[in-house]
């Protein structure tokens, strides 16, 4: 089976020279094989299928979608933790995916990641100081051996931890504090972009706000750009300047935070937003609720045409025949639906 290499229709193929990071036609397939001795390639899990977006300096791009939609895969491919099947990602004009080993190492300074689980992403046998200083063992020119300890302490202080705790181990910290350690480690190499992969989902409700505020402060201080991946649409709205909604490996709608939340044009975005519980009992029974039927189809065998059509209440024969292009339709921001129409599903604040 030949890997699908073309970009999602409607998306640009040329990089945007004004953007810090310009992703074009990004495809990532995971091969499915059969047999033990002779591994036969029997298909692909199409995790990401031709995604394109830009990230500007100092901006936060939210990436939302249900589990299995490919949002974490995008993050990992951008860091080349997975090799892409096709596509380009231009960081300051250079294609990240064609870099050799040495250049790649330089790149990883510029793009860092914070993981979801603050329990498993920190080595339990290393002290916090060593965890934060570890990036400098590879990028030796950033901090000399002598200054590492004080620099690690500075970083701990910067993320709101006690610098005297530099010799403690991860288990001596709470979940929120551990996530701060992860943030400090990501900052160690002065990156330009931090990819936050569900950074607050594992935290207690009362602690989430602390970490979100920290990320916002650091962004202001260091001019960082974030790709913020989360399934909690309330947190994403709060922190993002722009939001991309993904479904089965494709972006179905992308635009400014206000556009997406207040004027969603794609049925999937509408369904997603209408399902978010709102902590206001007065709205009970008064909301425009779209309850989708069924589950997300398998990315190994996605539906033809529009991938959302199997769960869509608007689906017509054309949806199975022709893939809708991601292009401005109902509003100025692009969405990928043949029957795009704005439907306001997020209740206005009371």
């Amino acid at each position, binding site marked *: 089976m030949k890997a699908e290499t073309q970009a999602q229709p409607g998306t640009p193929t040329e990089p945007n020279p004004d953007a810090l990071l310009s992703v074009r036609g990004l495809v990532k397939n995971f091969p499915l094989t059969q047999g033990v001795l002779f591994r036969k390639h029997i298909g692909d899990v199409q995790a990401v299928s031709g995604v394109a977006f830009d990230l500007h300096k100092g901006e936060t791009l939210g990436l939302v979608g249900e589990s299995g939609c490919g949002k974490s895969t995008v993050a990992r491919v951008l860091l080349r933790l997975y090799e892409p099947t096709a596509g380009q990602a231009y960081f300051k004009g250079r294609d990240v995916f064609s870099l050799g080993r040495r250049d790649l190492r330089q790149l990883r300074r510029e793009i860092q990641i914070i993981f979801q689980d603050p329990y498993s992403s920190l080595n339990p046998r290393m002290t916090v100081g060593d965890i934060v200083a570890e990036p400098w063992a590879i990028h030796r020119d950033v901090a000399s051996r002598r200054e590492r300890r004080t620099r690690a302490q500075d970083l701990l202080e910067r993320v709101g931890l006690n610098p005297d705790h530099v010799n403690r181990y991860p288990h001596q910290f709470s979940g929120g504090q551990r996530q701060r350690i992860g943030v400090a480690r990501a900052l160690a190499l002065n990156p330009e972009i931090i990819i936050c992969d569900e950074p607050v989902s594992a935290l207690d*409700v*009362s602690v989430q*706000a602390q970490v979100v505020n920290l990320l*916002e402060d650091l962004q202001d201080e260091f001019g960082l750009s974030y790709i913020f991946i989360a399934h909690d649409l309330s947190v994403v*709205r709060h922190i993002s300047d722009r939001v991309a909604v993904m479904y089965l490996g494709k972006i179905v709608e992308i635009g400014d*935070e206000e556009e997406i939340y207040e004027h969603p044009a794609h049925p999937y975005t509408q369904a997603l937003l209408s399902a978010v*519980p709102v902590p206001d*009992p007065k709205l009970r029974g008064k909301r425009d609720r779209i309850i989708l039927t069924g*589950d*997300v189809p398998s990315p190994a065998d996605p539906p033809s045409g529009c991938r959302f059509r199997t769960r869509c209440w608007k689906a017509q024969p054309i949806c199975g025949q022709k893939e809708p292009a991601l292009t401005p339709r109902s509003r100025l921001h692009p969405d990928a639906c043949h029957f795009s129409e704005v439907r306001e599903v997020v209740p206005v604040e009371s």
Partner: protein
Amino acid sequence: MRKARTALADIEFGPSQHLLEVRELAVEFNTDYGNVHAVNGINYTLDAGETLAILGESGSGKTVSALAIMGLIDRPGRIAEGQILYKGIDLLTLPTAERRSVRGAEIAMIFQDALSALNPVFSVGDQIAEMFVVHRGMSKKEGMRKALELMDRVRIPSAKERLHDYPHQFSGGMRQRVMIAIGISLDPDILIADEPSTALDVTVQAQIMELLKSLQEETQMGLILITHDLGVVAEVGDKVCVMYAGKIVEKASVSDVYESPAHPYTERLMNSIPRVNQKGGRLDPIKGSPPSLMNIPHGCPFHPRCPRARIPDPCRSEVPPLREVVTNRLSACHFAEELLAEEGVEVFAT
């Protein structure tokens, strides 16, 4: 529908009695590191057809209190104190055999993580049928017939073909439906749902909450919903108990609590969360993190994090009792009246 043939099922209980009444329940775990006071004297009632939400962060004792009702507290844990009255009978004094007949048939529970709650080596049909074989003495064949009925009732598509499938062949949402099918199989009077939708995507979460609500309308069972999600509580709860460090700190109708919280913890929690119908702006987090249950602060457990705390007196020196501040509104804060008065609620003269 046939009722459970247990001794308790035939008990007529007076209209003045509650279906379930938890009195002064305390649960502790004696570990090598010290005593963990997971639940410290909580009281609540539940009536038929009612939804009681128990809201709290991890470690607040919400799940342990539910396990106590189910009789599932095992060593090193023990119920240190209290009564659990089901239809007026104290479950804690029942002999093991009778206790077992209550579990599942009268009071059932569904768990957050359906994949680990289900047995991977038996088909879902087998696992639902087991309820009928064990509790009702039905044959395997009859049990499977019942299982099929139930899978239809929880709206698992093509139930007949899926009866012999194993848990791993189902999606997260479908697995949670299987859990619900097992939960309601013996037509219990009370269903305890422990974070039933937390691990699921929002669109599936909406489906599951919808299903639970409609099943409750059909059967008039009492539902105890354990969650940390303020949005879910607002959408389905009638009454809410807010738990913090093993205690109920506030108890009232959902609309009252959301309109004007009577405890600073609830108030601060509501202010700290981002909302999908609100744009950015800075979040107002609660400082610190939830206390360790081995080392609960003196006096009011929330005082180290409370902006209203008056230290040392009375907040650090005196444990505030949970008391009625306004008709049907309970709060465990020394300054609940003050807080409510600020919010424009008339309080009892003190």
